[in-house]
């Protein structure tokens, strides 16, 4: 018995709306986090453009002036403001389903802003930040295709990029003895930056639990793309496990942006699943 909400994602517009809501909310949180540390984008901050611009390729003077204006401290704050407005607009328009053309325009504009900030913020990015750019690109392409009456290839792209992220993370872990032995988890949760004392106290004296969780992570990450081949209950279970994994990482490691970004790829995965099974 296939739940109707799952088959509903076979309709591209339902998948696009769900993706827009999740991506929009996640990007609003991420943007506000950057705004909260805006002093770091000043001339004596770790994201100082006068220093980072030296790592960019030489361009014609007019282009360089434009780049310095947009990526200077004031320009960057304006860019964050635009990003916040677009993110919230995408979330609201996606939730209400109103003005799909406007939602499409917001998706295209957000993709442009995220690509620009990809250049402005070359370091300190998480995997979720990188993937979010591709989710926005996928949504933007869906909007362009929709306007031309073309099929929503952007949704397939979003699902493929999510699969690539999961498989890469899983395969690169499984070749590392520290992950295979379960030791890696104890290292990570013992950090001030990514760990939590209570998690270390829980896992450090329990090597079997660590081993199990490490292997569960590796196998699940590698096998996630195969979920689209499973029947409905199996597919839903894999997505639920994936979501629980990201929530656990947010609680233990403080990686909140992964929850929003990876969840934003799930409607596209459901769209692909529905195409294969209906």
């Amino acid at each position, binding site marked *: 018995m296939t739940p109707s909400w799952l088959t509903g994602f076979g309709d591209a517009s339902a998948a696009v709306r769900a993706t827009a809501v999740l991506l929009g909310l996640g990007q609003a949180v991420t943007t506000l986090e950057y705004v909260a540390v805006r002093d770091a984008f000043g001339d004596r901050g*770790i994201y100082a453009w006068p220093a980072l611009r030296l790592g960019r390729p030489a361009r014609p003077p007019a282009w360089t002036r434009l780049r310095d204006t947009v990526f200077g401290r004031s320009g960057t704050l304006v860019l964050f403001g635009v990003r916040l407005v677009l993110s919230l607009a995408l979330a609201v328009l996606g939730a209400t389903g109103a003005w799909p053309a406007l939602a499409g325009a917001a998706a295209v504009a957000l993709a442009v802003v995220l690509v620009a900030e990809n250049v402005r913020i070359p370091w300190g990015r998480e995997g979720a930040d990188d993937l979010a750019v591709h989710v926005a690109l996928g949504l933007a392409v869906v909007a362009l295709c929709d306007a031309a009456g073309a099929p929503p290839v952007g949704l397939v792209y979003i699902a493929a990029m999510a699969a690539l*992220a999961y498989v890469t993370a899983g395969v690169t872990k499984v070749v590392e003895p520290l992950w295979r032995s379960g030791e890696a988890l104890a290292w990570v949760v013992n950090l*001030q*930056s990514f760990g939590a004392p209570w998690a270390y106290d829980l896992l450090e004296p329990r090597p079997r639990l660590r081993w199990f969780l490490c292997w569960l992570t590796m196998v699940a990450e590698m096998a996630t793309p195969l979920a689209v081949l499973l029947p409905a209950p199996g597919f839903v279970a894999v997505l639920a496990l994936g979501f629980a994994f990201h929530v656990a990482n947010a609680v233990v490691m*403080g990686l909140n942006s992964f929850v929003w970004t990876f969840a934003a790829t799930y409607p596209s995965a459901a769209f692909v699943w529905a195409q294969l099974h209906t």
Partner: protein
Amino acid sequence: MATVVGAVCGVALAALFVASVRIQFFDAADLHRHRSPLGLLRQYRLFSPAPVRADIHLLVRDIDHVGRALPVREVTSIRLRRPVDTLWNPRRRRWLPWRAAMLELAAFTTDLADDRAAVQVAPAYLAVLGVATAEPAEGAAACQFLFVERFGTDPARSPVVLFCSAVHRLEGGGDGR
């Protein structure tokens, strides 16, 4: 029209996906050589292959006008996990770049084996120097920064210095600015 747009978009996204798959196989040196201009091609080695095993701390040693070292101060502000971090965690946006900056400095230092002083014009070096000199101690005339690796809460393992900068004179040094 619909067929053309669909085909163009499909080919463009397929090319981007194939390029993304290809870059997953690159090692650090390949990545350094093949940076994509827009930064769209990234690796998704999340906490792998080797897990993050240490916290990176930035320490600054101020020196007064007679060359006496002042107390070392820590610039990085990593703090223990709080429940609210699950939803709202802006502070990591401050310390996440330290690891990337440190790795970039290490790569530059290795590449510039015969001319290590040239690392001082690397973007990472200049950005970190800006942070280190932003709020000098009272009476400081010069400063030096260090990246230190600390292995969690394991008391058996001492912190390790990963990178030590040159000593830099401060603008208006000696009058406490």
